[in-house]
């Protein structure tokens, strides 16, 4: 559905060099990305700020011309065949509205029916579904400029879907939303993805979006792919481990060691201990600990995707030497 081969985008920027002189410098925003995304896949496209995510999506949607490499979406080349491609994809740039500022939301949807040449019945059915799932009814008559961010974002999602796109590109669709709105958007996208009719590429800084929605995770940094696989792949690659957190009635005896685990931290004067489970099961570790010390409370903590991704991002910085 989406093919990128050695895709690149260079921006020429002028930087101050001395008091009056300005130097041209070439910034490789996307630096040779090769990816292949199949129909019906849901892909999380993440990376630190400035990694080149938005730039990639803009090349996939025909907004920006690539500086090099090849790209095709739905079998079309985005820039030369922009208008044909636009009929088959849906786009939400979280930071930028696709709606008409001065018109009521419902009116924007009506215009989109003409812009995308959608038969009335189809339009009606899709709109009905979005209105129900995203709770739009309350503000269908409100001018877009008066909508709150979360309301507008739900409107944007609807706008991107009314023509029944085969591929949906979402650039930070949950940015700035409250917990409830985020969940509404996520479960909406989850349902959409479950049908398998639409391919979804999503960028976000909220990794819960990814955990909830995306099987596949592509991480880029400085315009290059640094990881491509499932979330589990990422955990095993970085050796993420579960940990065991125990609250004790009396501090652990000095020099205590749990077989198959390392002691990660000791807090509260020895009353709270965290072990990292290296080569043991949670059951065995708990049994050994209960035998050795008076345990008041216990919890097993799954590895946080945030931590793994943070390690991935900081590694990237180490390699290229950029602070």
């Amino acid at each position, binding site marked *: 559905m989406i093919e990128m081969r050695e895709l690149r985008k260079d*921006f020429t920027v002028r930087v101050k060099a001395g008091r009056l002189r300005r130097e041209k410098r070439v910034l490789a925003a996307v630096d040779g990305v090769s990816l292949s995304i199949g129909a019906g896949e849901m892909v999380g496209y993440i990376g630190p700020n*400035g990694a080149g995510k*938005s730039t990639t999506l*803009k090349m996939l*949607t*025909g*907004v*920006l*011309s690539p500086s090099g490499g090849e790209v095709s979406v739905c079998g079309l080349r985005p*820039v030369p065949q*922009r*208008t*044909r491609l*636009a*009929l088959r*994809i849906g*786009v939400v*740039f979280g*930071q*930028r*509205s*696709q709606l*008409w*500022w*001065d*018109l009521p939301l419902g*009116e*924007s949807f*009506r*215009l989109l029916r*003409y*812009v*995308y*040449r959608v038969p009335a019945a189809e339009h009606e059915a899709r709109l009905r579904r979005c209105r129900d799932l995203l709770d739009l009814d309350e503000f269908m008559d409100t001018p877009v400029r008066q909508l709150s961010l979360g309301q507008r974002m739900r409107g944007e999602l609807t706008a991107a879907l009314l023509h029944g796109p085969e591929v949906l590109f979402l*650039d930070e669709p949950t940015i700035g939303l409250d917990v409830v709105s985020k969940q509404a958007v996520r479960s909406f996208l989850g349902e959409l993805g479950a049908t398998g009719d639409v391919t979804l590429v999503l960028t976000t800084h909220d990794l819960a979006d990814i955990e909830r929605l995306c099987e596949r995770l592509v991480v880029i940094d400085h315009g290059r792919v640094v990881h491509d696989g499932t979330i589990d792949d990422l955990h095993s690659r970085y050796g993420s481990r579960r940990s065991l957190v125990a609250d004790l009635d009396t501090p652990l005896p000095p020099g205590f060691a749990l077989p198959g685990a390392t002691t990660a931290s000791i807090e509260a004067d020895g009353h709270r201990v965290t072990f990292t489970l290296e080569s043991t099961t949670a059951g065995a570790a708990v049994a050994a600990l209960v035998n050795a010390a008076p345990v008041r409370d216990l919890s097993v903590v799954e590895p946080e995707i945030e931590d793994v991704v943070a390690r991935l991002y900081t590694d990237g910085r180490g390699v290229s030497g950029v602070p």
Partner: protein
Amino acid sequence: MAELRAYAALLGGRFRSATAYRTSFAVELITNAGGTAVDVSTVFVLFHAAKVVGGFTLGEALMMTGLTASGFVLADLTVGNVDQLKTYVRNGTLDAVLVRPLAVLPQLVIADLPLRKLMRFVVGVTVLVVAVLSNDIDWTPGRAVLLVTAPLAGAVFFGAIFVLSASLAFWWVESGEVGAAFTYGGRDFTSYPITVYGTWFRAVFAYGLGFGFVAYHPALTLLGRADPLGLPAWAGYLSPLVALAAAGIAGIVWRTGVRHYRSTGS
């Protein structure tokens, strides 16, 4: 066909949001008409000082002013809004235009409803009518056709200039009013007999860039006057060709420009 309906719907939407600001609309309508009247009156001021300028009387020069004004306002009315491109490029909002299944230029052109410019159009056409009435024209079928085609060709030509000036923003984001200076400078240039300009200046603008064929040569042909600069009488009929050439160039530059668009970080 379906695309035309899309544009019609967009225009309708625009109209509905424009009527939300009715008072400012009326004010703009009046100030716009005033603007054009002031532009035209400079010609009268010039001829008040000297009865003959560049070898032409006021009535004759008015023909050039009238052809220019009517062609220009028609262009301004239809594609004038393209000068907003610089804001779209600066803010990166052209992204939203580019993800729609429609051509970029028509979307920008109808992004604002230029009804307020209608008064300018009325003023422009009035000047042309006055010019026709105040000259003793020896009507032939060719001249009658020319009276209609010349303002239309002028509109196409100025439309091309609008698009070219606006395209500057694709390469030079901070171009500001430079493009507008070119557009309005061109209009002012053709409002007067080109005989008043210095040789090299005239060579570049009138013939190099084609501004001489917008009003000067068609006016000579309508008036039945020989060109003091020596071009044959049929030069007046060249204006549609020059206009089409300009439109072709503008189209190529525009397309190239769209591919140069670099959006903004987001």
